[in-house]
């Protein structure tokens, strides 16, 4: 029997109850920076950093109190449960506060907070990475022409993500989602003077918008199908996230509504999280400053889609039938994305683009995990990935800032930087190993768990996809590492200066020898300090965030280290929602400005029910489920060893290849793509990014936008002429007399007639437009008088 667990017993606290302040602080700071930033001694950047640190402190406090809360519940339950009995973890109710934001036509739109383990994980990670990125930007963007605006946008961006993460309902979630969309546009296009950058910003914005349609449609579908159920049973609207979860798990939900709602929402996630086939915006988003890429691609923006799936997981669980082992939409998209993006990472010259595709691929892992029922490993992967990917991006930024003269081209301007920039190289390598999933770094514990659980839940084909993804990840990251930090120094890394107009190395594998780039100092647009002494280590404001992140990339995995037993599985204890049945205690109706409190109790129900957990049978009346029962794969060293061997093989084979290819210039390897038709075809295919961009721009956009523009032009030009032409074409084919008799006389007559009529009317009306104010006034009053007269006549 489970203990009676009243909500009073659950410890709460100031931080938990006031978590809604976490996004409000940066949002207010945004306004302050915009209005007063330029007058401050550090141009507003100090406000941004300060606000993120405050948010971090609040999020940390809330996380600490959440841990207390879970402990108070779980430990209490343990005493009551007989030793050794298998049981479902007791339900720890999330801290939900909701206020009416606005109401319209009987609909209440709430705003507030929904704090549970998932929200807190993201809150802490986002606030933490944002703080470090802002500190890093102090140095990286020093002297930028829109320094203040950059910090303002960065702060608002974090506020958007934080707002989305603690959203208690879909409306607030959409709000945060859209704030991020807007800010990503502003930040990617930060240097909009170059056309490529503003094009990338537009592309990011529009591609994500395509998916955002799905978010609105999905929310609407779910709202209209869930609202009456949630109002009746929980007293909350159909936007409410816990309401939606309970509705999806209730067994009374319309299945088609669930399926279509989940599909629509997932399309939004494809757009936001850069899943195949809408991943194309993500690599282009590298046009923004590096700190932006780092923030976008580690903890915010792209994670939003994954977060959405994790947040309303029951909807996806039921809608996509994740519990079955059949292939579903999410796992399929995730699996495709892993491989497709990882292959693309091999042909990139730009270090940031390698990382961008790597992000896409890792997001594929998260999606695949969620689609296969591996909720916890996927969320854990969000957590660990944030640290090492942020570190990788910031390292790349550090290389370009101090090592390669603001270039990101690995082949042209890097190489051999390990000696010149030891700290950057060390942090990069640690994060690379973490990303590849080397034991015991962060990536191992999360990525391996995803692969393991995907297989455990019966998705065997996708386990193989995951393993091959791990191989590819190890290989492309080794290639990037080699090109950047080892081998011979090339271009700017060798102290040469080149200008932007320098002929780009051929878009081909066998690029020109480095010596071909002439050194010339004439076009040096940068400060003398850069040019004076070649590559060097970055200043402390850059290296310290790097070191912090690298340290976390080392140890973050230990927070849910399944190999070391249950005591290490802290994420499982504190983050994963319980699948226990919860009795609905009753609700307090909400008035404007009044908090909605949905109090719940853990149930002392029959053993059978409590042991099974949700999703096995539908909950009875008066009970609700908030999360499906998900299975955890027991950890086995044999399985881990397999993936570790694969990773090691990836690392080694790629290293050997790089050494042979880039240094010794092995005759058998160099120019392979030129000699072998198959390889060249593959390379061209990858280089052109599977022709997806071409498909979107040339085929889809053109076939939709072009006809619309043409049609509008055609209609605008003059409809009558169009009719004349249309009739003329048909009639010419059918018979001449139709053309002569009907077209010429009737239709053309109409054309001429209408023209003549317009001309005549114009001529008649011309005197009215005299340009004399008094005359206009007279007309006005005359019209008013006539109107008044008509009114009088009608009313009498």
């Amino acid at each position: 029997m489970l203990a009676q667990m009243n909500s009073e017993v659950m410890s709460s606290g100031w931080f938990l109850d006031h978590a809604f302040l976490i996004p409000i602080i940066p949002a207010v700071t945004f306004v302050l920076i915009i209005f007063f930033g330029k007058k401050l001694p550090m141009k507003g950047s100090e406000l941004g950093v300060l606000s993120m640190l405050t948010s971090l402190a609040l999020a940390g406090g809330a996380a600490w109190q959440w841990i207390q809360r879970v402990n108070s519940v779980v430990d209490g339950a343990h005493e009551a449960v007989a030793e050794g009995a298998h049981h479902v973890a007791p339900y720890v109710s999330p801290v939900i506060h909701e206020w009416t934001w606005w109401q319209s036509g009987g609909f209440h739109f709430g705003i507030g907070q929904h704090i549970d383990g998932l929200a807190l994980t993201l809150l802490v990670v986002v606030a933490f990475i944002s703080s470090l990125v802002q500190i890093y930007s102090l140095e990286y963007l020093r002297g930028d022409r829109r320094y203040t605006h950059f910090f303002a946008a960065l702060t608002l961006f974090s506020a958007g993500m934080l707002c989305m993460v603690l959203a208690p309902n879909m409306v607030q979630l959409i709000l945060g989602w859209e704030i991020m969309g807007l800010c990503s546009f502003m930040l990617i296009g930060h240097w909009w003077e170059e056309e490529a950058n503003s094009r990338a910003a537009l592309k990011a914005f529009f591609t994500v918008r395509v998916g955002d349609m799905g978010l609105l449609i999905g929310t609407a579908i779910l709202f209209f199908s869930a609202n009456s159920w949630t109002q009746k049973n929980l007293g909350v609207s159909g936007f409410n996230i816990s309401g939606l979860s309970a509705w999806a798990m209730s067994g009374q939900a319309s299945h088609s509504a669930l399926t279509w709602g989940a599909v629509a929402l997932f399309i939004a996630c494809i757009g936001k999280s850069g899943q195949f086939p809408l991943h194309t915006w993500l690599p282009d988003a590298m046009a923004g400053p590096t700190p932006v890429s780092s923030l976008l691609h580690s903890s915010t923006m792209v994670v939003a889609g994954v977060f959405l799936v994790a947040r309303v997981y029951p909807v996806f669980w039921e809608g996509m039938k994740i519990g079955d082992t059949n292939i579903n939409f999410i796992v399929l998209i995730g699996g495709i994305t892993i491989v497709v993006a990882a292959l693309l990472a091999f042909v990139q010259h730009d270090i940031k683009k390698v990382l961008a595709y790597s992000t896409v691929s890792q997001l594929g892992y998260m999606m695949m995990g969620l689609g296969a029922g591996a909720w916890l490993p996927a969320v854990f992967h969000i957590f660990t990935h944030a640290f090492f990917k942020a570190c990788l991006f910031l390292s790349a930024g550090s290389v370009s800032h101090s090592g390669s003269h603001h270039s990101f081209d690995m082949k042209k301007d890097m190489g051999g930087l390990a000696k010149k920039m030891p700290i950057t190289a060390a942090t990069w390598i640690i994060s690379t190993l973490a990303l590849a999933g080397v034991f015991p770094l962060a990536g191992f514990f999360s990525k391996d768990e995803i692969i393991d659980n995907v297989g455990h839940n019966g998705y065997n084909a996708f386990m193989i996809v995951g393993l091959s993804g791990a191989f590819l990840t190890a290989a492309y990251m080794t290639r990037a590492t080699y090109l950047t930090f080892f081998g011979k120094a090339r271009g700017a890394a060798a102290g040469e200066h080149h200008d932007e107009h320098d002929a780009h190395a051929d878009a081909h594998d066998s690029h020109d020898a480095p010596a071909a780039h002439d050194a010339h100092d004439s076009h040096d647009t940068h400060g003398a300090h850069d040019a004076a002494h070649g590559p060097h280590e970055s200043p402390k404001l850059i290296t310290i965030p790097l070191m912090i992140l690298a340290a976390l990339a080392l140890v973050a995995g230990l927070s849910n280290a399944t190999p070391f037993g249950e005591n290490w599985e802290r994420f499982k204890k504190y983050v994963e929602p319980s699948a226990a049945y919860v009795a609905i205690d009753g609700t307090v109706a909400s008035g404007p400005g009044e908090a909605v409190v949905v109090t719940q109790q853990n149930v002392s129900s029959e053993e059978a029910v409590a042991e099974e957990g949700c999703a096995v049978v539908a909950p009875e009346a008066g009970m609700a489920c908030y999360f499906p029962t998900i299975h955890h794969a027991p950890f086995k060293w044999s399985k881990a060893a397999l993936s570790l061997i694969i990773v090691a093989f990836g690392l080694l084979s790629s290293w050997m290849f790089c050494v042979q290819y880039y240094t010794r210039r092995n005759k058998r390897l160099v120019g392979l793509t030129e000699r072998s038709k198959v390889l060249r075809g593959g390379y061209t295919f990858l280089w052109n990014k599977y022709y997806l961009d071409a498909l979107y721009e040339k085929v889809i956009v053109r076939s939709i936008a072009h006809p619309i523009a043409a049609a509008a032009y055609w209609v605008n030009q003059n409809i009558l002429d169009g009719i004349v032409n249309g009739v003329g074409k048909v009639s010419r084919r059918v018979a001449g007399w139709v053309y002569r008799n009907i077209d010429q006389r009737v239709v053309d007559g109409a054309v001429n007639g209408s023209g003549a009529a317009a001309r005549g009317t114009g001529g008649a009306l011309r005197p009215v437009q005299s340009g004399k104010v008094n005359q206009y006034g007279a007309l006005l009053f005359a019209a008013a008088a006539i109107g008044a007269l008509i009114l009088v006549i009608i009313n009498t």
Partner: protein
Amino acid sequence: MLTAQFLLLGAVLFCIGVYGVLARKNAVMVLMSIELILNSVNINLLAFSVRHGSVDGNTFALYIIAIAAAEVGVGLALVLLIYRNRRTIALDDLSEMKG
């Protein structure tokens, strides 16, 4: 009841205003005439407000006063700019149409 007188006053003011708008050439005078029209409307509103014993009319009158103030501000600014550019505020001279 004085309503009829009030309405009469309003009507007279309105007619004076209309005459001013139509007949005057000076832009400032036209603006002043418009003020007269607006005030005649105010008087109408107040008359009916008194008659029906409600304050709705008073409220609207207050709004109209505020809007009239804004309008004359914009109008005078326009006149000032016209004067700067053309050195005249005679409305007849402003027309650029061929007629």
